[in-house]
């Protein structure tokens, strides 16, 4: 049994109230976390990882759980996405591969996008982390080194293992953010920011409102391939999503997740294709995508294997959207 550390839970009823709460804490220099479904944050709290004094729940704010082809609210439950007829099939399919049905009933889209990066030197109890003298991501004030790649004290290489992000990227989603300083929006691929500690562009006090998709997204065919040992519960060890508007090679989008500290869009590799996208160029494209990523040893499967599998996943995903089943 693990004891939850104490914190103050706040339940704002509106977005404005939430932002106000956040600005008050910021002004008073009090630490806080947002919580949506709690399936990522609370296990970390039980492990005494980055516990804050205050937790602001978004659960009681109404109107954040829209589910439609062009807009998905941050508080939409993953479980609801898997059965929805309104969302893009790629989102429904990617959501259905996340964790287990029990977790999906609680977990939210916003939470999944903002998933904390993971590392087996980090996702451990306090006693365990003390025994390795902490790590760079949660150094408890000791200035500890990274345990994955020692002797570099600048970067956290914890792995981002969110499942939805690559699918949102290949569907050209826009993330809408709100905070004490107002609202802003940006493409999903620009949301993530390198380093396993920084993770994304969210400033303190900001949270995700929703993700929107451009007109015509419904014409896109998509596919998400996920590598894991067990077909339930497990976080992805590698994941590749792709989509296009069938027949139009210029609309091809590919993104990967669970390989580095942030999910990655593979536009450069697509652009690097000299002879355009077709079933003949799939091997070449998959190879290029594989070469572009650099996983490290901090998840269940060894990095070399995960890297090699990117090629297989990319190949399978691309073949699927091409309708090529061979």
């Amino acid at each position, binding site marked *: 049994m693990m004891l939850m550390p104490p914190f103050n839970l706040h339940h704002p009823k509106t977005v404005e109230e939430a932002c106000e709460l956040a600005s008050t804490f910021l002004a008073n220099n009090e630490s806080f976390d947002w919580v949506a479904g709690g399936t990522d944050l609370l296990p970390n709290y039980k492990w005494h990882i980055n516990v804050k004094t205050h937790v602001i729940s978004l659960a009681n704010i109404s109107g954040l759980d829209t589910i439609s082809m062009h807009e998905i609210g941050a508080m939409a439950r993953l479980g609801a996405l898997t059965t929805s007829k309104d969302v893009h099939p790629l989102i429904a399919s990617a959501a259905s591969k996340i964790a287990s049905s029990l977790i999906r009933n609680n977990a939210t889209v916003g939470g999944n996008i903002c998933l904390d990066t993971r590392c087996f030197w980090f996702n*451990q109890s306090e006693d365990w982390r003390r*025994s*390795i003298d902490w790590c760079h991501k949660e150094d408890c004030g000791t200035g500890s080194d990274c345990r994955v790649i020692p002797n570099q004290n600048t970067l956290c290489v914890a792995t981002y293992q969110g499942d939805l992000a690559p699918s949102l990227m290949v569907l050209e989603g826009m993330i809408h953010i709100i905070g004490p300083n107002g609202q802003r929006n940006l493409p999903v691929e620009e949301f993530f920011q390198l380093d396993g500690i920084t993770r994304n562009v969210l400033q303190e006090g900001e949270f995700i409102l929703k993700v929107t998709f451009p007109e015509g997204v419904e014409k896109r065919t998509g596919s998400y391939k996920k590598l894991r040992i067990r077909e339930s519960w497990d976080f992805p060890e590698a994941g590749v999503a792709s989509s296009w508007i069938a027949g139009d090679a210029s609309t091809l989008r590919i993104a990967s997740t669970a390989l580095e500290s942030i999910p990655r869009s593979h536009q450069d590799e697509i652009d690097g294709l000299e002879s355009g996208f077709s079933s003949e160029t799939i091997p070449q494209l998959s190879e290029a995508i594989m070469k572009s990523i650099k996983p490290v040893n901090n998840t269940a499967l060894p990095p070399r294997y995960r890297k090699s599998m990117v090629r297989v996943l990319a190949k399978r995903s691309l073949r699927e959207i091409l309708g090529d089943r061979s």
Partner: protein
Amino acid sequence: MNHRCHQVMRGDVMAGGYRQQPGASSGEVRKDGKRVAGKQKFPPPGSGGSRPTMAPRDLDAIPESVGGKEPQPAGSHIHDRYRTGTEVGKPRALVDSHAKVTGQAWYGDDVRLPNEIIGKILRSPHHYAKIKSIDTSKVEALPGVLAVATGADAPNTFGVLPVTKDEHAMAVEKVRHVGDLVACVAAVDEATAMEALNLFEIEWEVLEPVFDPRKGLEDQDEPIHWRGKYHVGTTNVQKRVFQEFGDRSLVEDPTASSHGKWRMEGVHHGFTEPHAVVAHWDPNGRLQLYTPQQVPHYAHRALSTVLEVPMHQINVIRTFVGGGFGGKSDPFPHEMCAAILARKAGRPVRINFTREEVYWINRGRHPSYIEVKMTADEEARISGFDIDALIDGGGFASFGHVTSYYNGVLATAPYELGSFHYTGARVWTNKPASGAMRGHGAVNTRCAVEVGLDEMAEQMQVDPIDLRLANLLPPHSRTISGFRITSNGMREALERVREGSEWDSKFRQMPLGKGIGIGCGFFISGSGLPIHWDPNRFPHATVHMQIDMDGGVTVHTGAADIGQGSTTAVAQVVSEVLALPIEMIHVRSHESDTSPVDLGSYSSRVTFMNANAAIRAALDIREKLLNAAWEMLGYHPDVLVLNDRRIYYKHDPAVGVSYLEALHKAQEDKGSLISSGAYRSPPMGGVHKGAAAGLAPAYSFSAYVAEVDVDVETGLVSCTNVWAAHDCGKALNPLAVEGQIIGSCHMGLGQVLSEKMVYGRTGHLQNPNLLEYKIPSVHEMPHVTPIIVESSDPEGPFGAKEAGEGPLLPILPAVVNAVYDAIGVRIRELPLTPDVVWKAISAKTKALGGIDETELPSPRLEHSSLQETLVARGTEHKERDRRRQRSEDTSAYVNGVLFGFDPDQPLEDQVEGWRSAVEPVPEQLAELGLAGKAWLKKEQRQMGGDQ
């Protein structure tokens, strides 16, 4: 008055119900509908169950040999005449299942005592370190802290095996792994206790740790434990074993051979319930300890030693156990800690583990390096097994002494061997201690051996099932190491999985990525000698029984039901013997105060030994009841029949008495009927050192066929179908046996496909949680077809043998062999995680000139002429086995007859060079395997040290 008349008169009374008070009329009802006090309608004679009248005899559940219709292909059994057709052989829900499914079963964490406080354990942050000093003053000063204890409070050592007591309640001198117990504290609540843990001030002297078991074979400056004059050099070798039997010259010039080097990761039991203990010193100063223990008796002994309190002043209360699988069979340091804290604080203390602490206390399967060489001669007889097992024991001995033997000796059957050579070593490392886990010690070697056989079959171009069928030891024989085999259903198990899986139309015939494989198993059904060997011929199991006037039977047993259904098994056999509905049998097994000593739920001994003891106790009661009926009816017990709460004349069921009537008669002037039954296994086995390891009154046999799908591009293996045949002698409860088979399949699949305890670069356990320790989910479960084989063991209760551990063994090799059938690559690294399989596939495609994975050649089989020889021999042996099983042939049979030896003469006299050795001769030292290198060192006493 003749008896028939008597019966008619009784019949009249019966119609009015069995009177509770003499003279009072029955069934009187008041005007307001309430019953009249003292005049309730008492159910009719023969009452007790929910049925108003006697059920007819269930002839389908009474064996042929005593006039029933239950077929007995394996022959009759000594217990047949006590069969009443009531419970044995019928699928029954476990008697404790209602409590469990309604959430009313009380597990360790459900015990709540008034005024209890919370204990927490301070654990070592170092792999290996000396404790120079511990300052607890700040801890004691923290408000809310009620007791603090350190190693100094309990200096006595304990351990589950009396020969290797190397544990303390808390570290006395040094800590031996990260997570080892250093100190403990009890406080008013958990938050305070956790805060207190941060206030200990400890001065450490960090020592150089050892993680690699191969390093453990080398001399160290500071071995993890010191065994005094028996210490092997200054290494970390805890136990070394050498065994050699048979004619080693047979292995020369083999027709086929297999040489495999295996690396098997450690696995954990992964039981649902984390350890939880509550200790309470009652007002009389006796310790009441609540703990989910598989083996309460050894915990009882260890508590007495550590606390320096006589055993009779301790009451060990076994709570419901939320899964054990061997992981709750050691006496545990936290049990001592709770007792010590409770004694200091004067209040009940609870200690609950987190999942991480469960992994730190471990006792899971040993990480192993196993090397198996085997050879077959020109007639495809197995001329030799040469096994070397280096096992990683972690920080403590636990069951390791036994595991060291089991890794070898449990491979001496079910096949007849020309020779057997085994070297084993268990070393201490600075990791959580390994111990006993379902299939104790037999699982890893079994996998290596069965895969080796598959490889030899391929070399000889024969079917691996036929290779096995032509090399089996028959029933009533003796293994090369001297184990006494009684019943043996191996052949039937192989035949039935072959048929069920349609093996002959699939093996080596499926497309790339689809495969089918075979594996067999052999396991002990109870260990012949108890762990605490006792010169006074103490029984292994004792059962007490008591029946009072209400007719309910209270059975007292110390057998620990850990979910395997031992309580149900006891209730069933008592119910069967006394012909009473099972709801009339109440099993009390939780407290050592009321339970006779039972050695616990390990080595698959419970059903065999405890049910045998229960049968004996029930027979005593049965005799008393029959004698009373004799007195009442005038018919001798030999012509009386027990059936559903009635005892009647065999040739006229109308002449009889109800169970209650007979009981009340038997109770005259005595009060409640009580009886006691005990079981002790017969003397058997060889006389060489270690002969007792692996010795059992009976052995179980099993054969599995597994079908797998392998994704050749990713290396992901999924097991789709399993046909699982297990010889459990006689299924007392087929439902429970099937549950054990399917559960074993699940557990074994975890070890073969995904589960491993990952020790990283720094020696830390990287995955002490259930997300990263990958137990297969229901999604990964194949469709399992359980097949029960009943070979009717002559000494088992109603013929039963174990079904709890043996069924786990074959799934590993079956899957590994199926993966070979699917992709043509032999992998000798467990678990077969996708990266391991992919690496092997890549190596193969590279070796074949860089072909694509999808172009891998699938292995195919074209029978050689040996195949016919094997089929002929198998057919011949089938008839031999049938006659021996049914005792139509009672001639002696020892391992070696297949090689032409005379079973009635000592083998040593027949063969020059027939060896039976437990120590290597000097010229062998050079050629020993990895673990065998432990024999290069001398013990301290031989070196003149540490007298």
